[in-house]
């Protein structure tokens, strides 16, 4: 049995451990994919809306005079929706920033839990290269399985999650505007009833997963797997085996 086949077998050495790692990683990857798609979809909608509505509203003491830039004037619902869409962008970015961590953490854990094994392998004559290769293969297998599962999960869940994000954000902003009252409230009431088309377009978001996104996602997962396991394995393989055995 060679280093590679040992790495593959190690990926499945314990069913509970394998399922847990795959579950955590695939949910992380799915969430990252969903957030990435949401961000992309929302950005593209914002651009669409910006190009279809007026850019500046001019108000005179005598009342509304008009607006510049062409298109339809925003209704109060539209104002809430477009604000919510920007809000969704912030939420999406903050979630996706946190999604890369579990992938790295998992790989570090795999290596750390097996410090003794690394020490034993070195004591019986394994080279640093063979130890690092074995761990990189193991994490690659786990990450690839998780990436496939995560991509399937993300593809199915991207639209429902996106809609939930938009509608939750929209509701909370409308509530805030209602509570605030004052000039803003007057403005939104005044503008109501006009330009329903733009608002409807914003609420009707649809995320699509292209092959390019899937391939980029898989490539990113592979890079994370290799870096995430090879770096700690390499660091540990530099430690003298006596130290590793003593620390257990």
């Amino acid at each position: 049995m060679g280093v590679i086949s040992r790495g593959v077998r190690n990926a499945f050495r314990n069913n509970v451990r394998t399922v847990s790692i795959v579950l955590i990683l695939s949910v992380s990857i799915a969430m990252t994919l969903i957030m990435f798609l949401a961000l992309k979809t929302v950005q593209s909608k914002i651009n669409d809306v910006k190009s279809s509505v007026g850019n500046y509203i001019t108000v005179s003491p005598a009342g509304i005079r008009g607006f510049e830039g062409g298109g339809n004037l925003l209704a109060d619902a539209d104002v809430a929706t477009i604000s919510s869409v920007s809000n969704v962008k912030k939420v999406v970015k903050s979630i996706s920033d946190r999604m890369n961590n579990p992938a790295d953490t998992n790989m570090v854990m795999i290596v750390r839990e097996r410090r003794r094994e690394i020490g034993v392998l070195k004591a019986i004559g394994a080279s640093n290269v063979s130890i690092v290769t074995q761990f990189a293969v193991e994490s690659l297998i786990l990450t690839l399985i998780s990436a496939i599962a995560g991509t399937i999960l993300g593809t199915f869940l991207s639209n429902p999650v996106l809609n939930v994000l938009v509608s939750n954000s929209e509701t909370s902003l409308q509530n805030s505007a209602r509570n605030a009252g004052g000039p803003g409230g007057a403005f939104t009431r005044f503008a109501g009833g006009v330009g329903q088309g733009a608002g409807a377009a914003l609420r009707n978001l649809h995320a699509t997963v292209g092959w390019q996104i899937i391939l980029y996602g898989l490539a990113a997962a592979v890079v994370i797997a290799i870096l995430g396991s090879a770096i700690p394995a390499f660091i540990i393989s530099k430690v003298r085996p006596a130290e590793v055995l003593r620390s257990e």
Partner: protein
Amino acid sequence: MLKVMNLTKKFQSGEQNVIAVSNVSFVVPEGVFATVVGKSGSGKSTLLSLLGALDKPSSGEIFVDGENITRFGDRRLINYRRSRIGFVFQNYNLIPNLSALENVMLPMEFSGIKAGERSKQAVKLLKEVGLTKDKFRRRPTKLSGGEQQRVAIARALANKPKLILADEPTGNLDTAAGEIIVKLMKELAKQENTTIIAVTHDSSMSEKAGMHFTMKDGKLI
């Protein structure tokens, strides 16, 4: 032959400078089963780590068959551990997801021996240490402590080393199983002309050895 000259190992433990092995010198001829006895913290395991090139000494020299291993670079140290040394640990330290046979084959894989030859040699060694054939494919967790230690001894012998280092080889075994392991190691030292150095608390094991050393506070007494 193993020759140790003025071997010292110091550690930094917090603010304190601890001398784990202090100016130790001894010679063990080829094919001898030797024991090192001493209380916990006397420096026996550190000495074993130094002999097995698992750690570097602060000063002093270790000659194995005339070669000074303390001057070896990393690559030569890997080769030394791979081909000249066999380790037997108190906790057996078998790789848990490999069968008994695969565990014995592992050091041979690192030495570049072909798969067919590895398997043949591993079967021979497992038979020699007295493991029954039905247990060859079992994982370590499905073997008793005594059986695991037999597998560990077979693994230590896999690359036909000139020196076997055993750290409390009977420490986790009952008396009967421990005696069998000691007998086995003595026989192997004789048959294969292999030098065995075992660190132990067990005075009865020490009585059966061809040579024995006692350590106290990092020194041989």
